């Protein structure tokens, strides 16, 4: 250590500085976790919320695991996150490459593209609800204008492209959500977050030193070769970070789904399902059990991510 005479002061101070945060974090994470655990082991419903909570052991957990709707929502959520992140990364990267130039137009575009990220998600949901209406919706009006048949965006009708797939068509529709309602959700999320991904890629593109690009050009590399062999590897840490950020946020999606479909059982994502159990069914015990399971799952994912990110950092 450099300043020996300051050492004792330093050590005590550093703990003082984190203490309030740790205390608050305890209150909002650890304490609720323990409370939830307690609730999940009892029968707690609307009727007895103010009176006795009988002990039921693991019964709530068993009910949760045998709830088909929960698994459907879980699968839908995983599928949603996978598709959305993939498309956003690809699209965002491509757009970043295109926009990687200095000009007034580019700066204007970059400013404008913040807007979709900061709009209230609930407003985004309601806005698209109006835009995607079957008759009178702007999107379908446009499609009609171009001479194509309007699409039933917000209904659970199967998407013909997938439904007509040989052999697995039916499976795609029934179990992998190849319906318009799911498509709408995916499209809306992509709409909202691709600008974000693009902006992040853009700024890390801009931090690639000019010399590297020029050296590649001098060596005779064509544009696509430059991208593939030079730019993309340099962007790997950014890729990892965006992946992390978007996964975290996509796991939390609630507002748009609820605004579009309410708590319709066939369109639920996991968060809507938890809310449904908590508010409509008012089965707090079961909701608590589900919450605990989700918490465990996200903890495992976080652990994996942290390891992954650290590995990535170490390898740089």
């Amino acid at each position, binding site marked *: 250590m450099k300043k020996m005479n300051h050492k004792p002061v330093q050590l005590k101070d550093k*703990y003082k500085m984190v203490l309030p945060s740790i205390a608050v974090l305890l209150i909002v994470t650890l304490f609720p976790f323990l409370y939830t655990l307690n609730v999940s082991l009892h029968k707690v419903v609307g009727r007895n919320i103010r009176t006795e909570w009988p002990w039921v052991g693991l019964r709530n957990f068993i009910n949760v695991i045998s709830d088909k709707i929960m698994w459907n929502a879980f699968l839908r959520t995983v599928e949603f996150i996978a598709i959305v992140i993939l498309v956003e990364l690809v699209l965002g990267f491509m757009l970043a490459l295109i926009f990687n130039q200095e000009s007034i137009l580019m700066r204007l575009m970059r400013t404008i593209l913040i807007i979709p990220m900061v709009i209230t998600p609930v*407003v985004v949901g309601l806005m698209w609800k109006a835009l995607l209406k079957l008759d009178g919706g702007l999107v379908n009006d446009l499609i009609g204008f171009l001479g194509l048949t309007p699409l039933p965006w917000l209904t659970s009708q199967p998407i013909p492209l997938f439904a007509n797939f040989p052999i697995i068509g039916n499976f795609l529709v029934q179990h992998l959500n190849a319906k318009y309602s799911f498509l709408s959700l995916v499209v809306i999320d992509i709409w909202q977050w691709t600008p974000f991904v693009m902006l*992040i890629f853009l700024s890390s593109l801009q931090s690639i030193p000019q010399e590297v690009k020029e050296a590649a050009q001098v060596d005779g590399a064509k544009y696509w070769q430059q991208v593939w062999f030079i730019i993309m590897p340099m962007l790997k840490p950014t890729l990892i970070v965006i992946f992390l950020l978007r996964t975290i946020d996509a796991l939390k999606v609630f507002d748009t789904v609820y605004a579009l479909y309410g708590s319709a059982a066939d369109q639920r994502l996991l968060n809507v399902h938890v809310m449904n159990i*908590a508010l409509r069914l008012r089965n707090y015990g079961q909701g608590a059990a589900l*919450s605990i399971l989700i918490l465990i799952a996200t903890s495992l994912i976080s652990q994996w*991510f942290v390891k992954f990110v650290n590995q990535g950092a170490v390898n740089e």
Partner: protein
Amino acid sequence: MNNRQLLRFIKKVPLFLLCILIFFIWITPIIWLIYGSFQSTDAIAQSNFSSELTLDNYKEVFERTNVLDFFINSIIVASTATFFSALIGIPAAYSMARWNTGGMGLAFWILSSRMMPPAVSIIPFFLMFTKIGIVDTVYGLIIAHLTFGLAFMIWMSRVFICEVPTEIEEAAKIDGANLWQTLTRVTLPLAKPGLIATMILNLIFSWNEYLFAFSLSLTEKSRTLPIVAGIFVTSYQIKWGPMFAAAGIITIPILILALLVQRHIIGGLTMGAFK
């Protein structure tokens, strides 16, 4: 114009068209939303905008709902949560940045509290707050917002503080400054752009937050603004006009705020993205 200039100009055309396409995809819906809020419900339902603008929708929102109360609640909750997160988060971030306090364990805890879907907190918060009696109050909401706000604040601030070179702090210490003076006079001003960007982002996240507002702030005593848009889904139909107006009221302050500080937001978000 010679050939080379002509060629460059032509190369720019597809780019320009792309910009127009992007503008169309991303900005037109929002303009449509705002323009539509001045149209009647029927006009929106049939996508038949007229050039007459009406303020009826806004009038209906103000008459039928306690929009002002919600607005005030939103301001109270968002600013208090952000302020409090900054107050205790920034020192924590400093401590973690400089001395790696808590090491991997603490960092992981903060990350996972940010990863946690808020839905898992609504049941414990609802039951706990009901027992204590703060369930339908702004205090309850503020505490709930701290789950994501504090972790975000600490995580981002840590990055920006790391960017401040330690040599400058050493120099201050040689000049006799103690820890707190170093922090406030030297480090913070240097990290200010990033920290302010983070606080503003935090403010926006709290403002836009819907799930906790929906589950925990049950009546207009503590209701925040995003809920107001749902009021116009009535028994029999969706009243698009007032709903758009409500959406406008919710969105416009954020848009203004974001555009005013957009330079910081891009910088803050992207700088933070690398650690």
